[in-house]
């Protein structure tokens, strides 16, 4: 399966080229257009054999839709184009059996069925930050399509970095992280506007987005009329 990316970085569009018999799984509502020979199934399932509870877990914890659409090329080659909800870039991460990829809530767009998706429970620490810190865990082999709000920076880290939680899109195994205060003191951390940050270290790849969805919404929200009760 090949992904082709166009209109980067602001309004990126991805086209997945499927060989006969290949299957792509995409986030619900991501499909823009497709060839006629693609068979579409909508399912609860995060992976073959997974039940309703698992997809529910994915939906509520991962910030994802718990419906997944699968596209299978039934006679000959086919293609399907995909767009995320937000303005911004997309990249293809080549997943291999030597590592796994953890994708923050809304960062996942699509992957072939050779890639399994699972939710990794982050504990209550995630709630404190005010930003959902649940990750979809992608394992297996194949290209994984991820999206961002704004530009996407690929960082091959060998060391340590402090990162605003709202700017993290995905990271590979080899990297460890902890959620920590932005400053030395609690009061300063709160007032700084950064709240909680991620201290991330080790050796691996991470993807960072140049805009923070929560901050974007807050800034724009202040300019909109109050919601009527």
């Amino acid at each position, binding site marked *: 399966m090949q992904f082709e990316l166009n209109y980067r970085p602001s309004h990126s569009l991805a086209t997945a080229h499927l060989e006969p018999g290949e299957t792509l799984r995409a986030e619900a509502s991501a499909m823009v257009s497709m060839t006629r020979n693609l068979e579409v199934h909508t399912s609860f399932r995060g992976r073959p054999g997974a039940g309703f509870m698992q997809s529910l877990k994915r939906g509520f914890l991962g910030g994802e839709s718990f419906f997944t659409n699968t596209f299978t090329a039934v006679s000959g080659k086919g293609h399907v184009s995909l767009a995320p909800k937000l303005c911004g870039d997309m990249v293809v991460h080549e997943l291999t059996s030597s590592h796994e990829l953890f994708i923050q809530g809304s960062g996942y767009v699509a992957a072939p069925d050779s890639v399994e998706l699972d939710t990794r429970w982050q504990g209550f620490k995630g709630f404190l930050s005010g930003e959902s810190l649940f990750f979809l865990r992608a394992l297996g082999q194949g290209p994984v399509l991820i999206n961002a709000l704004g*530009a996407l920076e690929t960082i091959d880290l060998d060391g340590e*970095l402090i990162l605003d939680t709202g*700017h993290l899109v995905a990271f590979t195994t080899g990297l460890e992280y902890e959620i920590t205060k932005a400053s030395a003191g609690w009061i*300063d951390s709160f*007032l700084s506007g950064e709240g909680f940050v991620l201290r991330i270290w080790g050796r691996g790849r991470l993807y960072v987005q140049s*805009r923070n969805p929560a901050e974007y919404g807050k800034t724009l929200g202040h300019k*909109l009329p109050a919601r009527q009760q």
Partner: protein
Amino acid sequence: MQHKIEHGPAFAWLRVQLAAGDSIRAEAGAMVMRTPDVQMETHLNAGYRPGIFRVIWAFFVALLRKLLGGETMFLNDFSTTGANGEVVLAPSLAGSIVHKRLQPGQRLFVQAGGYLASTGSLDTKVRFGGLRTLLGGEGLVLLECSGEGDLFVNSYGGITPIDVRGALTVDTGHIVAFDGTLDFKVGSVGGMKSLFLSGEGLVCRFFGQGTVYIQSRNVASLASWISPLLPG
């Protein structure tokens, strides 16, 4: 200190290399990431004013700046003790960042909410573009920046610098910043009729010599387009 503005014009961020002793000040919440040797210190957005009631005074100044100037109440200072720290800063909305080096005696007026970061002895004061601007609903609230240092201003949309020699008229919602050497007057495009019917709202007329930085989109227009689309 070295800086680089990347990912512009749609989603620009500011990457700053800090050497020992360097420091940059940024609005609260702007940090994307930093290397572990960079320290962050938070304080009230109230300039440098000594005195016994300093803290109380600073609190009210900061509150005023937040409510009127569209600024954040707190600012963060980033500095390092190491040799090469790095911090990346980003505004919240889609858009660009423009850099301007201010010399002592030079002033730059920045549209409220446009301040991203600064270095050196740069200080900001809230200024109003006159009573009429507040009545128009598209209030022109400005930050007057003075002192010596680097100033980073963010916009909504792309930024175009325009050299004014004589006069220039700009929609108030499209102003990012302008030189203190320029005189300006806020008003409607034509008479009262044009204020309500032309769809242009208020404009700012600049006179003299200097640079005006304009942005290709207007946040107020975005908000008024999106509002009716929201569920009740």
